[in-house]
Structure formats: C-alpha cells, structure tokens
C-alpha cells in the first residue's frame, strides 16, 4: 500500500462521465488511489468496470468534447485534470507513457519501427536523428529484440506478436518515463510469450524505477507482478490493498467471485466453479446502493443498506496491517468467516 507522503501519481475522487444518445454513462464514479515510484499497482476488473477509462483519463487521452472529468489526478504534484492540451502533451510520452493491449493497432503500419521510435524520442529531446537512432537501437536491444540494427528498419507487420509488444514497450520507455501504464499488455499473447513480457516489465521496472499501473482481468498476472491491487466494479473501487492482503484475505464478494470463477492448476479439477450469477451492470443505469448487490450472493441485507446506500471504502479493523480497504455492507467478522468457510476452497482461491 502506498503510504509514503509523496506518491508519484495521486488520483483523488476521479469521476468520468460520457454523454451518449441513450443518456449519461458514469464510467468511473469516485475512484481514489496512488502509486509510488518503483511500485506496481494492479487494477483488476472485467469489461465495463472502468479500469481502462481510468487509465485513459490519467493520460489525458479521452475525448474532451464528450467526456466530463471531475476530481484530481496529480502527476508528480501537477493536476492533469483540466490541463491545457499543449502542456499535457509535454508530459505525455516523457513523464508518463502507455502500453496498449494490441500493439498492431497502436503502431503505425506505414512507418518502420525505427522511425516511430526515433519520432517518440525527438518529440521530447532536441537531438539529431543519428543520436535518436542510437538510442532507439539501444532500447530495442534492452527489451530483448534480437538483431536490433536490422529490426530498426522493419515494419510492424514483420514482427511477431510478442516482438511487437516488445517494440511497444521500447517506445514507451524511450523517454525514461516515471509513470508507465500497461493496459492488458499480455492479453493478446500466448502464455509462454506472456511470461517473457511480464518478466521483462519486472526487470525494466527495477532498472528504471518507474511507477507502473498494470491493468488486467487476470488475477494470476496481478499476483505475479503487483505490489498493490485495486479491484474495480461498475466504475467504483470494490477493494484496495497490498497484493498480499487482497490475494490472501480478499474481503469483497466480487473479489471472491473472481477468485472462485478461475479454474486453477492445482486442487480438485472435478470441483465445480462458483461463478458470479448474472451480468455486469449497464453503466447507463447503475443499480442503486452497492453496484454489485444484484449479483451478490451475500447481499442478505436486501431491504437493508445493500440496495439503498452506496457502501463506503473502509479500512479493515480486525485483521492484518493497515491499508486494506473494502466497500461492502457486510459486517467484517461475517465476511472473514464466509471467506474462510465457503470461498477459500474453490478455484484459484484454494
């Protein structure tokens, strides 16, 4: 948990709304978190949870015409919400960079990898092309692309999926950013390549000491690389804590649902999974009270606060170190008992 006084990124009470023909979409609804340099925050959630919108808002990559941004995003003390575009452009790429899920759509198909890397470098550094080229080849080599000299002159379609993602990473790191956002960086890759890329990200973070946000739906990936975990659902934070806290003693029924839905490589393969019933909510018409209550099998407080009051994100009191917060109306003692009795033996939770 980031408890230091000066986290590199501090997001406070972020709200993102889109105006559409069907009404207002509340994609992110009051999200607060922080990331220090040298740490990795894993943001977990399913489609529509608001995890990608959060990262686009930090980068200032949302459409300013149709998007309403509220709250505060402090990057190294500077608020980027409402920052003019020309100032934002100076930050983007130099102080903060992003890796996208699909490198094929994020790279320009008409330009060589080398040219794109050189451009990314020269936007922020007043250097000659030759110097930038040297730097680009260095970066390609650093991310483990064999024969970087030759690869420099090739086009994205000549790279395999894993190599393309490496090239993306090289481009995002070429200006040595302090904040790196990786949005599902390995989802499109095969497992053996995914393992290579996750290792690479881990190594690079140690070397460059940046703050990293890793957005994923895969709790396995998160448990391997994240220091902190933020679980999002329906645009809100369900649970937030260190990876140790969230994975060892998850407190939100949605986190349980995710853990018990994932088949594991260990344990009884014949045991049934415990899926979350129903479907994620429409963000046009968010359920009242706790967003998760229509799918929650423990919302026994129905008629009580679950379907009326939005639960606050509160610190756990009875167990583990400070920093573990959860937004759920269930009494803490009951949550701990339920997890130990019913959930900890299913799926990857076991």
């Amino acid at each position, binding site marked *: 948990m980031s408890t230091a006084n000066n986290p590199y990124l501090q997001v406070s009470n972020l709200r993102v709304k889109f105006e559409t023909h069907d009404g207002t979409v509340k994609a992110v609804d009051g999200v607060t978190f922080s990331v220090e340099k040298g740490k990795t925050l894993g943001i977990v959630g*399913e*489609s529509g949870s608001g995890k990608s919108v959060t990262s686009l808002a930090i980068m200032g990559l949302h459409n300013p015409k149709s998007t309403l941004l509220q709250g505060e995003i402090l990057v190294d003390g500077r608020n980027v919400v409402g920052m003019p575009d020309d100032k934002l452009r100076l930050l983007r790429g130099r102080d903060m960079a992003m890796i996208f899920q699909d490198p094929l759509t994020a790279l320009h198909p008409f330009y060589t990898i080398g040219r794109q890397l050189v451009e990314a470098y020269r936007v922020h550094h007043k250097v000659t092309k030759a110097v930038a080229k040297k730097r680009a080849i260095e970066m390609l080599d650093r991310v483990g692309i*064999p024969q970087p000299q030759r690869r420099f002159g090739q086009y994205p379609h000549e790279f*395999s*999926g*894993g*190599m393309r993602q490496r090239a993306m990473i090289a481009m995002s790191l070429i200006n040595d950013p302090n904040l790196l956002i990786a949005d599902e960086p390995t989802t499109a890759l*095969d*497992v*053996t*390549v*995914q*393992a*290579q890329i*996750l*290792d690479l990200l881990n190594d690079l973070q140690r070397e460059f000491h940046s703050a990293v946000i890793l957005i994923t*739906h*895969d*709790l*396995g*990936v*998160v*448990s*391997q690389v994240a220091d902190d975990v933020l679980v999002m659902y329906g645009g809100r934070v369900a649970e937030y804590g260190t*990876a*140790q806290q969230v*994975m*060892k003693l998850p407190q939100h029924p949605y986190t349980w*649902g*995710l*853990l*018990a*839905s*994932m*088949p*594991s*490589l*260990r*344990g009884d*393969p014949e045991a*049934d*999974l*415990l*899926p*979350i*019933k129903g*479907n*994620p909510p429409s963000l046009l018409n968010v359920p009242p009270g706790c967003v998760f209550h229509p799918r929650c099998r423990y919302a026994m407080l129905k008629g009580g606060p679950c379907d009326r009051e939005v639960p606050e994100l509160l610190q756990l009191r009875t167990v583990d170190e400070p920093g573990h917060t959860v937004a759920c109306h269930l009494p803490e003692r009951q949550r701990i008992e339920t997890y130990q009795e019913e959930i900890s033996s299913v*799926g*990857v*939770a*076991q």
Partner: protein
Amino acid sequence: MTETVDAVQLDTGWKAAQGEPLLKVENLIKHFPVRGGMFGSKQHVRAVDGVSFEVRPGETLGLVGESGCGKSTTGRMLVRLLEPTSGKITFEGQDITHARRGQLQRLRSDMQIIFQDPYSSLNPRHTVGTIVGMPLKVNNINPPGGVKKRVQELLELVGLNPEHYNRFPHEFSGGQRQRIGIARSLALRPKIIVADEPVSALDVSIQAQVINLLRDLQRDLNLAFVFIAHDLAVVRHFSQRVAVMYLGKIVEIGPREQIYNRPAHPYTKALLSAVPDATRLGESVGRIRLQGDVPTPINPPSGCRFRTRCWKAQDICATQEPALSVKETGSLAACHFPENAVLIEN
C-alpha cells in the same frame, strides 16, 4: 508414419477396457498452400502434420497449445468444415474422412461445433428461435410437440429464458450468446461436440458460468467433447484426457493427472510453468522461461520441432524426429530426453 500408428495402438491398449472409441483420428494432415519463396514457388503451411488420437463416448479430450499449433484446424477437420489433406477420421467405425453431402448431413447431427466468437457465429438478422431451430429445419426433423416447443426446451436447458424465443442476438450479452450457440449445437442431440475456445472471449465470471453449464450438460447427456483451448487451467478443469500440440503435432497425450502433475515433454512443462498462478504469490522459483517465438509452420525445424526453444536439445534432436512413446510418467510423449520428475504434488 508407422511410429504414429503404433502410438495410437498404445493409446488404445491403455484404454481398451472402456470400449470402442467414438471418434478415431489417424495421422491427420492438413497443409494449406501459400505463395512464397524465390520465384513464387509453391509452399505449404503445415498446419496439422500427423495427428492421431481417440475420443470415447462421454469423455472429453482437451487440445491445448499456443496460437498456430494447429488445434483449431484439427477441430475444423473433425467436423469436416475443412477437408483433410490426408489421414483418416473414423466416427463410430465409419470412415468419414472424405464424406460427401448425404453422409455428411447424417454425420453433422451426431457431431456439432461451438465457436469462439459469440458475436460472429450467430446470424444477427435471425431470432433466437430461428437460430436454435435451424438444425431441426435443415434436417427436416419434426420433434413431438413442434419445433418451437423443442427450441424452448433447449433454451431452458442452457439456462436462458424460453420466452426470449423471439429476441435477436444483439439483445443478449456475450455469455448469453454463447449459451445460444450451445443450445443450437444440442438441437440434434449430438454424441460429440467440438468446442473451439468456447469461453476465451468471455469475462472471467461469465467464463465460469459457461464452463459449469458445459460440465452439467456432459454429465446429463453423456456427451463427448473435443475441447480446444489455450488456457491450461480451463482445459484441466474440463478434460479427462489432454493432448498438447506444438507446430502441428501432438507432443504429449495422456490422462489429465499425468499431463498436469508429471509432464514428460519439456514443452508441456514449460507451458505449465508459464501460467501465472494466483495461488503462487510473487513466487518465481523453478519457472522455465522459453526463449523466442514459435517457428513458422511453413518451414518447421528438422527432427523435433520444439528443439529450437528446448533447453535440453542435443544433436539427435535435429536429425531424428522423436515418436510418441510411453514415458516413465505414464503419458505418451514425443521426446528424446523426457522429464520424469513430479511437477505438482496433490
């Protein structure tokens, strides 16, 4: 070639007690022609290059491997959406490798396929009733009580509201659409279903719903499955036997416990250790990291196809192709230097 046939016999002998296979595949090959090379000479993508296995009634065979290993091509050949280049597919003792129209139509009521993408595999202009009832109509089947009643039963079976008979696919979520695809595949009461990545396009929580549904259906209807997926944990959860494919070949095949707990082939071992496991928080001991990417199937490496990425490879691996044979661990593996240690203690 004789080696692969031997392997089938070994596999057969091992399971002889459990009766005749429902589906038998022998040395199946599919090459796709591509233009390339110097002077535009004709080359072939060797997508599937000699694959043999059997599926018994009511059992699930999982086919796993990375993209490009030929698992989907194999699945499509089984239901004859693709014509095999050579090899033999036998269904209930009948050779169906090159079955023509009439025979194929009968065959397809026993053999169905579920596709990965629940968005592109349903006709957006048809109602759910039409989509699920189509197999009945095409085959001129008039179930007792009428098509509508049968379709509604099917919708109920897969956990959809039968009253949604007249809705269109766009009114359903991804998980519900996949259920529609499953209902359609069940319409003709098939004996075997080829499921090609049926859950990989779905969110985790929805994935578990669909896996549970498929397992219930298998139990209740005694269906056999060929379950194709890249997710090893999902395959383990669903399959009694597992075949691991690499570059168009099966490198290891055996009962689930052997494949997952005592893998014999180095590739199986590497694949398993690459899966990020939420139960092993921050652990990285004993992990195997494969270098590089899968080579092109146009010009696969000589000898053992995995040798270019294998940490155990020696000279013999480049010259002699290892045959599938029974290894110490109990599964059939194609490797000159198999592993023999227990990977996971249960």
